[in-house]
């Protein structure tokens, strides 16, 4: 692999190696070193991917909103902000989906049911479909600037759902438990290595997210400039891609 092929740089490659090391250590701590829970048994191990993935999704959607706000507020509107917003939202949708799936597996073992329509689960499902809609708006026909303006407005509105999702367990009674670490009463309710594993998960997933966003927004830049150059190049590229496969 030559250094300049694809969307990688030496910085992203170093970050990628770090992420791989962290993922391996997360698996060791989450699946091996940390203890079982007194009530849940080993089911608690699902938490080390479930909580970090929804945390990453929150960060992703927050970043989308910040970038959209910057895009709209600058006089010299730069599409780079829009691309970071789009990349971030796409990865956020991926992580909400992961969080919903792992959460329902955990729920089947602990609650005895995959899904209930309580405040937390309903609002999370709502967050998910909202951002699927956001990605659909980005795919609408139009210039890049139109895409950026439409999606920025939508991102700024959609991000308001995040506090609703996060505090839904405090506002209403739900089957889903309250937050254990980010508890308003500031009493951490996890024992030793469980807490460490959870934090390791948060760090790992956050860095993984950064790595993904860096690459995705670069492919988006390429997609945009190809669209600008016109169809003929894109067709040639398609043909080439099909030849490679």
């Amino acid at each position, binding site marked *: 692999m030559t250094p300049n092929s694809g969307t990688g740089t030496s910085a992203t490659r170093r970050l990628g190696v770090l992420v791989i090391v962290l993922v391996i250590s997360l698996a060791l701590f989450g699946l091996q070193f940390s203890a079982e829970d007194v009530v849940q048994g080993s089911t608690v191990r699902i938490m080390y991917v479930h909580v970090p993935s929804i945390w990453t999704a929150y960060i992703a959607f927050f970043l989308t909103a910040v970038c959209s706000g910057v895009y709209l507020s600058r006089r010299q509107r730069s599409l780079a902000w829009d691309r970071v917003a789009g990349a971030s939202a796409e990865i956020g949708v991926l992580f909400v989906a992961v969080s919903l799936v792992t959460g329902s597996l955990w729920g089947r073992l602990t609650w005895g049911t995959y899904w209930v329509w309580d405040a937390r689960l309903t609002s999370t499902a709502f967050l998910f479909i909202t951002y699927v*809609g956001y990605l659909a708006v980005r795919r609408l026909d139009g210039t890049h600037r139109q895409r950026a303006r439409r999606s920025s407005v939508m991102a700024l509105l959609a991000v308001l759902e995040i506090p609703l999702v996060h505090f839904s367990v405090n506002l209403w009674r739900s089957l889903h438990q309250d937050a254990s670490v980010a508890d308003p009463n500031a009493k951490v309710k996890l024992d030793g290595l469980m807490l460490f594993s959870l934090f390791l998960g948060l760090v790992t997933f956050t860095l993984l997210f950064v790595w993904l966003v860096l690459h995705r927004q670069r492919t988006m830049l390429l997609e945009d400039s190809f669209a600008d150059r016109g169809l003929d190049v894109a067709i040639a590229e398609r043909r080439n891609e099909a030849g490679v496969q």
Partner: protein
Amino acid sequence: MSSVKSRRTIVVAVARKDLSIEWNSRILTNQVAPFAAIVMVMFAFALDNEGILQRVAPGLMWLATLFSMLIVVQRSFTVESADGALDALRVAGVDTGAIFVGKSLALMVQLFVLEVLLLATAVVLYGVEMTAVGLLEAFVTMVVATAGLGCVGTLYGGLAAGAKGRETLLPLLLLPVVAPVLIGATRATEAAFGSGGTAVSEGWPWIGLLAVFAVIFAVAGTVAFGPLVDE
């Protein structure tokens, strides 16, 4: 101010134009309404089980409304983009906010007609029994929910108008946004129907939520319709 008056004439003219096109084509009465009724009947086939239909009648009624709404919105903008009518109005310097309000009103009228029909279907087909207050509540729910749906439908219909593959894109755009209306209107209608032992009084806060939704999208649509549909 004279501009307020002229804006009102534009609103009325646009709404009347849309409604008269619909009236002349008879698509709403000959195709969309039968479609919605068939959806309700199919639900009845699928869920023919003691007690279930009465319990889920409100949700089915609103689902059928949303499905029909996708068709109506699609039509409302196919008519515009087919002969470039929207562009003509814009080039003529007509206020886009007024176009938005006019088209929304036309959409609301059509949706309301559909909902009345669906409500009657639910009452007849699913054996729903309502008190007088419940009927009033169902009526208010329909008015407020329709206001919200009309605004959202026009805003997103305008966005998707002329886009490639809009037939499949519009549901993807529209359904996530109207999810709150589905929840709120279903809960309020449940209270009105008294399904599952709910009291009529439980529906009013949901109607409040629907009203908030309608106000947000009415304002946002009036302001943003021009810039979003433009260019």
